[in-house]
Each structure stands twice: as C-alpha cells, then as structure tokens.
C-alpha cells in the first residue's frame, strides 16, 4: 500500500476514535460548559464518560501545551517527551540485553541438551514471578539507579526471544541438516549458515513483542527503582492528581502508547530490512 494510503487510514482511524470519544460525552457525559455556562446537558449519564473518567479531547490537548507548573515555561507535552526519551533509553538497553541473552540461551539449548534440561525449568519459573515482587529485590541488590530499571526491562525481554529463537534454530528441514552433514560442515558452520538465518523470522516476531514488553518493564521499574525521571515516575505522579487533573494522566498514557508504537515501528523497519530477501509473507 502506498504511504499516502497508509497515512490516510491512520488519520481516518484517529478521527473515528475522536468522534466516538466525544460522542460518548455528548450522549452520556457531564454537562458541557463554556465559560461556566452550561451549553449542553447530555440526556444520559454514563459513569465512564464523566469529566473525571474521560476528559474532553481538547482538555487533554490544552493540558499538553500548558506549562507543567505555574512559573515554568516547559509545557506538559515537552516534559513528557523528555521523560519518554529517558524511559526509552532504559527500555532500549534492556531490549538489547534481553535479546542478546535470549539468543545466547537458545543457541546454548540447541547445542547442549543437558544445559537445556538443567536450565530451562528456571527460565520458565522466572517468568511466573510477578515483576512487582521482583522489582524491590532487584532495587535492594543493585541500588536505586538506572541499572536496576535496565535489569527489570531485560528480565521482561529475554523470555520471548529465548522461546522464539529455540523454535527458529530448530526450524530447518531435517534434510537441510543432512545436507550440511554431507558437506562435513562443523557445528559452527551449521549455526551460521543454516540455523541462524533460518531463525530470523522467528527472532523478529519475538523482538516485536519484546519492544513493547521492555517499555512496560522500564515503566514498572521506575517506581520501586526510585528514579526521579521517566514515564513511570510521571504516571505515578499524575495518578495521584487524577481527580483534580485527569487530563495530565491521560496525556502521560497517550505519550506512553506513542512510545510503544514508535519502538515497535523501529523494530518493524529493521525486520523489513533483515528479511528483504525472504519470500513475501515471512516479514509479516
């Protein structure tokens, strides 16, 4: 599809969401006011459409461009942008480390059966421990630094990569392995010429999951990590102000979602590049 077509679909869909959002408030929200005067009193009352639960779109927008605090010039939007960048840095490092650990574990599992039998139960068990239980322990060990947040993001990142890579490394046809054996190829050659290239589509499927998981990990980690920056801190702070200024938390959520979409998009572009020589459908 052409780029123009894609943009048109995106813009059209945003418009539909905005219409539904404000439509709910027209039908069942709180009274609409202009300069204190009630200009529209919706016939129904939906609790989800109240001004606290669902602020007007333009109120969110106004909050984004308004100064963050009285007396500062930085807008809420600019503030959130810088916090998002900070969180993204933590997430990206965790993403890279998680991917490296995931690939390394899968390669080790494929080559050493005893290692897989010994270690994989712990890898699986690690994923059932909720991060809220683990985060304080990591912070206690490592200290209230960005490192602990990176570790948490890594922790949430490596598992999908391990599982998908394991599948990918084992994906070659048995005859392809026989072919390599007929060439008396070394295990290293089998890994580099066959197993790793064959696992690329699997790897990128996992990396797309990991891109968003690492952001969640970074955000969740910033609270117990005692980090004074980042979207996690902003979300915690604005959630305390929710009843008086819901539009600020909504702004933080929108920026967080945008960050996830952008990071996903970056991985997607890398995938399209890496799989450009594959049959159509593999890079889907």
């Amino acid at each position, binding site marked *: 599809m052409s780029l123009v077509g894609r943009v048109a679909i995106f813009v059209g869909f945003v418009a539909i969401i905005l219409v539904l959002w404000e439509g709910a408030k027209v039908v069942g929200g709180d009274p609409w006011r202009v300069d204190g005067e009630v200009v529209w009193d919706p016939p129904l009352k939906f609790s989800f459409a109240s001004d606290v639960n669902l602020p007007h779109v333009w109120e969110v927008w106004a909050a984004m461009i308004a100064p963050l605090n009285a007396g500062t010039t930085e807008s809420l939007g600019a503030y959130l942008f810088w916090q998002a960048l900070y969180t993204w840095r933590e997430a990206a490092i965790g993403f890279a480390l998680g991917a490296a650990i995931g690939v390394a574990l899968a390669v080790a599992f494929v080559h050493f059966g005893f290692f897989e039998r010994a270690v994989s139960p712990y890898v699986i068990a690690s994923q059932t421990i909720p991060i809220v239980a683990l985060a304080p322990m990591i912070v206690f060990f490592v200290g209230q630094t960005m490192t602990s947040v990176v570790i948490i993001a890594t922790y949430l990142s490596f598992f999908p990569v391990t599982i998908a890579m394991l599948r990918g490394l084992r994906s070659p*046809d048995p*005859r*392809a392995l*026989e*072919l*390599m*054996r*007929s*060439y*008396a*190829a070394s295990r290293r*050659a089998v890994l580099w*010429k*066959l197993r790793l*290239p*064959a696992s*690329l589509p699997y790897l990128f499927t996992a990396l797309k999951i990991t891109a968003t998981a690492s952001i969640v990990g970074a955000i969740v980690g910033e609270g117990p990590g005692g980090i004074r920056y980042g979207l996690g801190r902003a979300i915690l702070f604005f959630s305390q102000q929710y009843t008086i200024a819901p539009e600020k938390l909504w702004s933080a959520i929108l920026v967080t979602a945008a960050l996830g979409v952008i990071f996903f998009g970056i991985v997607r572009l890398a995938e399209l590049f890496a799989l450009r*020589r*594959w*049959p159509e459908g593999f890079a889907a």
Partner: protein
Amino acid sequence: MSEAQATAPVVQLRGVGKTFALGDDSTVALNDINLDIDRGEFVSLIGPSGCGKSTLLRTIGDLIEPSEGTVQVNAKTAKRARLDREYGMVFQAPVLFDWRTVEENVQLPLELFGQNRAARTQRAVEMLELVGLSDFARHHPYQLSGGMQQRVAIARALAFSPDLLLMDEPFGALDEMTRERMNSELLAIWERTGITVVFVTHSIPEAVFLSSRVAVMSARPGRITHLIEVDLERPRGLATRESPRYFELITTVREALRTGEGRADDMSTSTERTAAEGGIG
C-alpha cells in the same frame, strides 16, 4: 586419474545390515546387502515403500550408520569419504536456502570448503550453465518452479566436483512431463561429467531409462533381490522411450519387483511389517 583408482569400485557394500530399535521391538531395515558400483556407473535402487532404499543410500553417504557390514566409498570408509567430501547429495525436496540467491545456494558447499569468492563465483557460473539456469543466478529459490529448483540442487551437488552423486527420489515430486525432461538433462550431465550416480526411485520407467544397472529391492527385511543390466544404447532420448527393448526391460523390472514382494510376504511376520511401514521411508 590413475588406473588403480579408475578400476576400484566407487561404492562397495559388504554384508550391510541396518536394524532400527523401536522401544522393545526392532525392525530389520536392511539385511545382507552386497553391491559393487564401478566408476561412471549409473545405478538405480528401486523397490516398494519401506524396502530401505533411502536407508541404503544414506549408509553410503554416512548419514546413517549400518548395524552390520562395511561400506566403502573410493576405497575409504563411508565416514572418511564424507569428511573428504567425496559425494554430492540430492534429496526429493530441493532443500535450497530461501534467503540465498540461486548462485549463492550453488556456492554453499564451496563456502563451507573455504574456497575464495572469485573461485566460487566462477564455479557457480559454470554449474548454472550446466543445468541451464544462467539467467536465474540472481533469483531466489521461491521464484523458481519445482523442476528449476531441483536443477539448482543438482548444480549445488556437482559444484565441488565430487566423484559420486547420491540422489534420493530427486524427481519424485515433479509432474510426469517435467520428470522426463529432467531425466534427459540428468543423463546429459552424467555423460558430460562422467560422475558415478546412485539413484533411488520408485518409478520403473525412470530407473530403466536412466540406469546402467537397476538394483531391485524388496521389503521386510530390505535386501537386493535382482540386479538387472540395462543394455539400452546411449545416448538415450525420445527414441529410447519408444524402443521395444525399453518396454521389455520395464517388464523385467516389474516382474522382479513382483517376485521380490511375493517372497517378502511369505517370509515376514505381521509385526515386522507394521514396524517397517512406520519406521523406514
């Protein structure tokens, strides 16, 4: 090539047997196989499903180890011959790597053997010319038809000039017309290169058309029941397929297969049969 090398059999099988263990049961896939294949021969292994012909081919390539007997390739053990890259292998599926172009697929063994880029490129050009795919060097395998893909697999198997070509039902997945064309092309390549071929098939016409000898196998346990000389004139072509001698030989092979099967049924027990059908292709 020295006279001694030229006269030694390329493949020598002595009392080869293979037993697969399936839990408490065991299945005799191959039993007392003896066969010498001389340099430049084209030998087909033909037999019903489960007769162990693919297993036999794999023991020659040291992809499966025999339980009994000895396998020699070029007067070496099968393992030594594999490590010395004495044979090329072609499977029923082309087993090409989709992420590589056609020429890169042909270069794969040369890469593994440490040849430099210039030599590899040169060789791939020659090989693709040999199989008539020069115009498709930069294509990817998934852009080619099944017959073309199999030609790439043949080019890849021949790229490092092995003495022996092992083919496991290479044209089994192709339609009849493509298969006949591929048969003629394979014979042309065989005549030009002088390579020794061991060819597994379950098509009687294919075996007769291609081979200098046909080894007829029977199942349960898998063994060679007949060795049939194919004395059709070469070069073989359309006229061969229409000659009376061709049909005579087809009948001979068919009857050999039938008598082989009859004997197998008399000898085998029912448990052996089900296990063999499950285990060996």
